[in-house]
C-alpha cells in the first residue's frame, strides 16, 4: 500500500489509529450515518481538535462522519433579532464577518486570539464548541452573549442554551446520534461586548480569558443585564454567575465593575498547571473581568474602543 513508514510512525504515536470514513452531504445523511454506526462514530468538521486527539490516541473513533461537504451549514446571517452562525462556519469566516463584528464586538475580539490565521481558516465554530475544551474561547463568548445552540437528531431539532450546552470538560449535551447545526445569538438594544485573553504566546490556549456582554438601561447609567464568560478557570458553564447577579441593576461605574471582578475571582476554580499557579489565574480573572466590563460598557454607550 506504499505505507512503508507507517510502522515507524506508529511507534511515535503521531498518526491516528485505524478508522473508517464516511462523507455526508446533508444533515439528514449525517444523522443517518451517526445512527447506523452508533457511539463509535464521531462527526469530523475542521478536525483541528479531533485529529490531534486521534494522533495522541486520546480518542479512537471507529468511524468519522465528515460533514465538510454540507456547505449549507457554512453561513453567518441575521434572522429577525438573531445572529445565526452555521456550525460549519470557519473561525476565519466569523472574524471576517462585518455583521458579527457590528453586533458583537466580543466575537471579533475573541477570534483575533483564537489559534492562528491558518488554523482559523479550517477550524469550525461548531467543532470548537463540540470539542468542549475547558479552555475554549467561543464557549465563554457565547455564554456571555446568552446564545443558544440548535442540535439536530433523529427526532428533529432542539434548542439548548449556551449555558447548558457543556456538561463538563470535553462533554456536551449533544448525543451520539445528534449533531450541532447552528448557534443563535440574540441581538438586543443598548448592548456592548468585549473579550480579552492572556496567553503565553501568540496562538496559544489561554492562561485565562474573559468576555463580557453588557446591556444598559435606556439612560445609559445602569446595567440592565450582563453576561460574563470565563474560560480556563473551571467556571461552571463558562459563566461568572455570582458577578452577573451582583451587577444587574447596578450603576455602570468603576467601583461596581471592580467589585464584580473581585466576585468573579472569588468564585472561579482555577487549578495550578504549566500555564501558571492558581492565584495568578485568579488575579487575571479579576483584572480581565474588570477590563472587559469597562470596554463593553463603553461600547454600549457608543464609545469607540
Amino acid at each position: 500500500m506504499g505505507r512503508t513508514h507507517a510502522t515507524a510512525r506508529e511507534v511515535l504515536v503521531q498518526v491516528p489509529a485505524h478508522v473508517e470514513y464516511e462523507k455526508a452531504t446533508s444533515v439528514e445523511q449525517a444523522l443517518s450515518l451517526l445512527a447506523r454506526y452508533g457511539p463509535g462514530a464521531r462527526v469530523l468538521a475542521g478536525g483541528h481538535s479531533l485529529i490531534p486527539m486521534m494522533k495522541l490516541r486520546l480518542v479512537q473513533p471507529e468511524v468519522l462522519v465528515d460533514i465538510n461537504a454540507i456547505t449549507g451549514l457554512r453561513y453567518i446571517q441575521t434572522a429577525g433579532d438573531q445572529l445565526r452562525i452555521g456550525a460549519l462556519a470557519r473561525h476565519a469566516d466569523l472574524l471576517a464577518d462585518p455583521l458579527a463584528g457590528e453586533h458583537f464586538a466580543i466575537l471579533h475580539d475573541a477570534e483575533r486570539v483564537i489559534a492562528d490565521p491558518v488554523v482559523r481558516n479550517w477550524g469550525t465554530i461548531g467543532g470548537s464548541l463540540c470539542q468542549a475544551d475547558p479552555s475554549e474561547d467561543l464557549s465563554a463568548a457565547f455564554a456571555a452573549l446568552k446564545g443558544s445552540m440548535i442540535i439536530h437528531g433523529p427526532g428533529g431539532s432542539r434548542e439548548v442554551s449556551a449555558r447548558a450546552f457543556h456538561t463538563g470538560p470535553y462533554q456536551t449535551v449533544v448525543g451520539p446520534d445528534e449533531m450541532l447545526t447552528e448557534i443563535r445569538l440574540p441581538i438586543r438594544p443598548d448592548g456592548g461586548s468585549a473579550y480579552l485573553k492572556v496567553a503565553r504566546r501568540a496562538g496559544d490556549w489561554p492562561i485565562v480569558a474573559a468576555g463580557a456582554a453588557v446591556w444598559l438601561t435606556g439612560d445609559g447609567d445602569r446595567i440592565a443585564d450582563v453576561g460574563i464568560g470565563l474560560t480556563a478557570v473551571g467556571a461552571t458553564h463558562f459563566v461568572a454567575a455570582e458577578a452577573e447577579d451582583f451587577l444587574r441593576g447596578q450603576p455602570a461605574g468603576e467601583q461596581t465593575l471592580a467589585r464584580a471582578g473581585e466576585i468573579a475571582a472569588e468564585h472561579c476554580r482555577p487549578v495550578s498547571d504549566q500555564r501558571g499557579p492558581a492565584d495568578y489565574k485568579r488575579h487575571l480573572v479579576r483584572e480581565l473581568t474588570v477590563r472587559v466590563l469597562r470596554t463593553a460598557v463603553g461600547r454600549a454607550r457608543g464609545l469607540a474602543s
Partner: protein
Amino acid sequence: MKITVTVNGTDQARDVEPRLLLIHFLRDDLRLTGSHWGCDTSNCGACVVWLDETPVKSCTVLAVMADGHRVTTIEGLARGAVLDPVQAAFATCHGLQCGFCTPGVIMTARWLLDHNPDPSEEQVREAISGQVCRCTGYENIVRSVLRAARDDGGDTG
C-alpha cells in the same frame, strides 16, 4: 479508500487509508517533499498547503478530506523556471536560513498577497503568526514578503 486529488493542477488518484494525513499523502505517496512535516500538532506551519484556495496545516487534515478538491503545494508556485515573486523575494532578501519553515511560510505569504496586495508589516506578521521559524529569522522573512508585495505590483505577468 479511493481518492482523487488535483495536486498542482494534476489529478492524482490513489487508494489510501482514511487515517492518512494529507502531509504524508503529499510527501510519501506523491513524493512532493517540498511541504515539510514539522511539529505534527498544527503549531509550526511547516506543512501549510492550499486546500482549494485556502492555506491549511496539512498535518491536521486527512488526505480523504481532500478527495475531489484541489491542493497547491510549494512545487506548484513557480511557472516553469520562473519563480513566483514570493520565492524570488525570499532568495533576494535572505528569507530562509535552514529552509525548513520556508515552503509553508511562502504558501501563506502568497495567499496573503493575493488577498491583500499591499500589506503593512504588522499584517504580514499577523498572517504568518502560525508559522514557526526555528532559526528565528523572522526579520528577513517579513522583509521578503514586503519585497514580494512590491515586486508583485511591478509584475504584470
